[in-house]
């Protein structure tokens, strides 16, 4: 016990996060193999993994770096479509679906990271709500640009048309015989072979956790958090603002791209309108409800809020209404000073207990 106490509290929390995720995976995987889970829930498992990774990565931008991003789904979109293109064009070269999935995830992360650099360098000079609006604009631009892409692959390699004027069609690709269409403009990607698996999703979550938690606890992470807490003070002690901001932003977008590739390869068809403003907002909701900068909070809220609308399916038309009301009530309950005071009056011991803990430590 004394040995446990000598370990830092943050290390313990990180440890608990890893172990919690592993235990949750083992339980769910056993239940899944036993067939104890309903069909709709099994179908939700991979999207849940994607949303967890998205929430952790957005938490890096919003919670740790302290910059509001409203276009996180844009990076997911870049990752999803580049991942799909990679997986589809390697179909004949690499027969193993797991290997192809891993390559697709890496490719997705790579392209999303490039997008992150392109957006990040000019934009991170802006502050606060202006950064939010530019990331929002980026998400919308990505959506429309992908809507104009026509991509196919044959034995000569990739064929790409940018159909900006709406005049080109699938036949303009001039695919050879045996060629495969990958993205058909506004129809999105169709005929995708769904190769995502729950296990790979779990591994992706673990890798994300290792990257993000180690980053936060490192020297760079402390520099990033110093920027968040007081930019001017951080600058005055010689922290390179652009470098650390860009580092957090690019890592966050690369992870979003990886999650996107996993997401894209879970469905047989995918449209770019899936990754709209509402999806960015959805992920932001996970992060804020889980607690800014709190990684395990993001994981739990992403899981619960993905399951909640499904669990409310019994209420049919009312489920999104209930979701909205729950959202408002939770925000009011956790942030309103009146309600906080009320809770403290009812349960006064909680705060005293925490103080005693701190004194003991």
């Amino acid at each position, binding site marked *: 016990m004394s040995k446990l106490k000598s370990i830092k509290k943050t290390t313990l929390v990180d440890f608990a996060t890893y172990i919690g995720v592993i235990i949750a995976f083992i339980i769910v995987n056993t239940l899944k193999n036993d067939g104890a889970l309903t069909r709709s829930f099994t179908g939700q498992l991979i999207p849940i993994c994607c949303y967890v990774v998205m929430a952790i990565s957005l938490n890096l931008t*919003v919670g740790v770096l302290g910059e*509001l991003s409203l276009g996180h789904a844009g990076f997911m979109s870049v990752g999803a479509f580049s991942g799909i293109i990679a997986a589809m064009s390697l179909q004949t070269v690499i027969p193993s679906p797991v290997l192809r999935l891993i390559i697709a995830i890496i490719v997705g992360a790579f392209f999303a990271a490039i997008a992150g650099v392109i957006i990040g360098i*000019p*934009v991170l*000079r*802006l*502050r606060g*709500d*202006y950064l*939010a*609006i*530019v990331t*929002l*604009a*980026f998400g*919308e*631009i990505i959506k*429309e*640009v992908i*809507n*104009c892409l026509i991509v196919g692959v044959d034995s000569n390699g990739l064929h790409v048309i940018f*159909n*900006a*004027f*709406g005049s080109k069609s699938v036949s303009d690709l001039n695919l050879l015989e045996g060629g495969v269409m990958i993205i058909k403009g*506004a129809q999105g990607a169709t005929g995708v072979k769904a190769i995502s698996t729950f296990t790979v999703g779990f591994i992706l979550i673990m890798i994300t956790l290792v990257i993000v938690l180690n980053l936060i606890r490192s020297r760079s992470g402390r520099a990033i958090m110093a920027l968040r807490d007081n930019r*001017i003070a951080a600058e005055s002690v010689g922290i390179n603002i652009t470098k650390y901001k860009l580092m957090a932003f690019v890592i966050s977008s690369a992870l979003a791209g990886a999650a996107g590739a996993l997401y894209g390869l879970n469905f047989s068809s995918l449209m770019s309108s899936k990754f709209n*403003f509402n999806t960015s*907002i959805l992920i*932001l*909701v996970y992060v*804020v*409800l889980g607690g*800014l900068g709190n990684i395990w909070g993001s994981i739990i809220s992403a899981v619960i809020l993905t399951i909640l609308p499904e669990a409310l399916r019994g209420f049919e*038309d*009312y489920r*999104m*209404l209930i*979701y*909205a*009301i729950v*959202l*408002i009530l939770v*925000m*009011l309950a*956790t*942030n*309103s*000073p*009146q*309600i906080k005071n009320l809770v403290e009056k009812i349960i006064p011991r909680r705060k005293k207990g925490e103080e005693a803990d701190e004194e003991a430590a």
Partner: protein
Amino acid sequence: MVFLSYLISGISLGSVYAMIALGYTMVYGIAKMLNFAHGDVIMVGGYVSLIAMTSWGLPVWAAVVVAMVACTVLGVVIEGLAYRPLRSAPSLAVLITAIGVSYFLQNSAQLIFSPNPKSYPVIINGSLSLFGGKLTISYISLVTFLVCVIIMIALTLFTSRSKMGKAMRAVSEDKGAAQLMGINVNRTISMTFAIGSALAAVAGVFLCSSYTTLMPTTGSMPGIKAFTAAVFGGIGSIPGAFLGGLLLGIIEAMAKAYISTNISNAIVFAVLIVVLLVRPAGLLGKYVPEKV
């Protein structure tokens, strides 16, 4: 001539954006919050005016008044129930609450009016023919633009001359100091929401009339665009919101006409990014240097 007619349709679209952006910018300037539910108030205004016109048989001007009253009440109620308890909370918490309100309004509308689009009547028919019929300007475009200009001038006068307007500017500058000077901060912010929502109702009528359809999600994209317009012009500035809205509408119309309809939104947003990089506070926004 063709260019002029595109320009006019751009101005007409831009005037609608500007009306919405004026509401956004007022709320942002005073309450310092991004009210994402603003777009959905527009949609509510659209439905209320549609009911007033078709079911109750009211004339257009009366329907607009009914919609304004309904949206004003809605805006004040939303502010009182959802935003006021969070006055001292972090801005992200308020943002998420605003998103919750937006979902709530959209889904309530879906339950009440069904998700199917309803057709919305063109409120003013006819058009003006110029240069021997080479250029036609529909009356609705003219009216939209005129109404928008009148609203902009009225708001500028209101905030600079009236007592309530001065209180609003004081609150936007420093809430604590304003309170010490005897200004009722809560009432001032409620008033801002009331004005913003009434403007949203007017914008809703013109928006639906130019789209001729109305759905529970009608307000969201124009809401985002108007927010962009407000930032474009310098958020918090009333002439800025007007200018930003008009420019956004013109750029969108021109991009649709001369470049491509498929990527018109992408072009609009790309222009926004470039403008923000050159002028980080927007076109007419004030650059506030930081004090250390």
